[in-house]
């Protein structure tokens, strides 16, 4: 069905709590991404995963970690969330070696109080 699914869509956490954002795709894409979107800044790449257990830092990895144990599933973890991590997080996927054609999920809005 060519879909990227993100859960949860909305999340409110207190500062210092742990956060788990999950992403699944049904296209068997090798490459998956986590971006965050902030007003006036566009999208910034947090992590990229080229396949199971093959993850690479993006432009803003500090404060985040990822896990990819199955090709179709990619998780973003915030250990001890901070208020400046309040944002909308997008997961995306693409074919291996792809030059920029990504499929995006609908986003997960995280508020850290």
């Amino acid at each position, binding site marked *: 069905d060519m879909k990227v699914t993100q859960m949860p869509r909305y999340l409110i956490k207190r500062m210092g709590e742990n956060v788990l954002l999950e992403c699944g795709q049904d296209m068997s894409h090798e*490459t998956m991404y986590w971006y965050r979107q902030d007003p006036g800044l566009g999208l910034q790449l947090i992590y*990229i995963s080229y396949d199971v257990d093959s993850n690479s830092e993006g432009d803003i990895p500090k404060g985040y970690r990822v896990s990819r144990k199955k090709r179709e599933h990619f998780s973003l973890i915030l250990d001890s969330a901070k208020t400046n991590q309040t944002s909308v997080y997008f997961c*995306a996927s693409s074919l291996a070696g792809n030059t920029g054609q990504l499929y995006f999920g609908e986003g997960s809005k995280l508020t850290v109080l």
Partner: protein
Amino acid sequence: AQSVTQPDARVTVSEGASLQLRCKYSYSATPYLFWYVQYPRQGLQLLLKYYSGDPVVQGVNSFEAEFSKSNSSFHLQKASVHWSDSAVYFCALSMYYNQGKLIFGQGTKLSIKP
């Protein structure tokens, strides 16, 4: 460093009017260029892409974009907008060696007046 700039944070046009959304990039070689659209409460969707060849590329919903190497630009155009075109539009750049990593502009919010 590579970058993408969308100089207009907001653009308002009347329904039926023509549209141009501006995008400038900074990259020493020829990049791969994209326009993505984000409708309210949704993820980004690809509108069109440029890899090489004809500098005018066609996309979905009658959008097109023109690549200009001399001006380092990739402006998005549409001859006649519809109210359903209201969305945020992102220009993005990828380098061929960068394995799919996209550099996004800040986005332009398009509003359509009835």
